[in-house]
């Protein structure tokens, strides 16, 4: 079960499994972002290239106006995927 939502603290909270069938659920949440924002991966178990593409598209769009995504609480397997994809050079990861 995947979910993407804004928290009261203004973070994007991801949970569950972000696979290719969940892009339509996640995209509206990321498309609404206009300013720099933290994306909290605390409850996210899994991500594939489909999810990475949503994040990269958002980062590129925000960068054009000097804003960015900051990623927090990635589990070690997701961290590995980010490294394989070179995304650790594109995102600030806490």
């Amino acid at each position, binding site marked *: 079960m995947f979910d993407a939502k804004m928290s009261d603290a203004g973070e994007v909270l991801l949970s569950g499994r972000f696979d290719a*069938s969940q892009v339509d659920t996640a995209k509206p949440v990321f498309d609404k972002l206009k300013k720099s924002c933290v994306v909290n991966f605390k409850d996210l178990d*899994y991500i*594939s*290239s*489909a999810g990475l593409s949503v994040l*990269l598209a958002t980062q590129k769009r925000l960068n054009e106006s000097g804003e960015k995504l900051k990623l927090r609480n990635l589990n070690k*397997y997701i961290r590995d*995927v980010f490294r*394989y994809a*070179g995304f650790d050079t594109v995102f600030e990861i806490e």
Partner: protein
Amino acid sequence: MEKRFKKSLDSLNSIFQFTDEFATKHNLDPGALFSLNLVVEELFTNIVKYNPENKNDVLIELDKKSHDLIIALTDFDARPFDITQRPTLNLSQYLEERRVGGLGIHLVKQMMDKIEHEYKDRCSKIILTKHLEN
């Protein structure tokens, strides 16, 4: 273990149930299961997107022999889908231009130790091997 899945993204949930069953049966660690899920999803979604001419089910076969995890996906009555012939993704260009496609196959190549492709009687089969630590 083997099972056929409808050629649709809607199959992903049942595919992950299948990989979970396999992981439990063979006592795979969470890291190996993560890699298994990721490569199976990337290849399956590529078949769904780039070989949509027929609606045949896709066969997924999983096996563990000694310390090797072996994963095979077969697309029936299909054009060859040989990822070993795909050019290596230029990662910096991809990240710069956000070119569509290619990232999933790049991840598969990074995570697997051996990738083979067989094409016979219009069946396109990709066979992946990952050496496990235990």
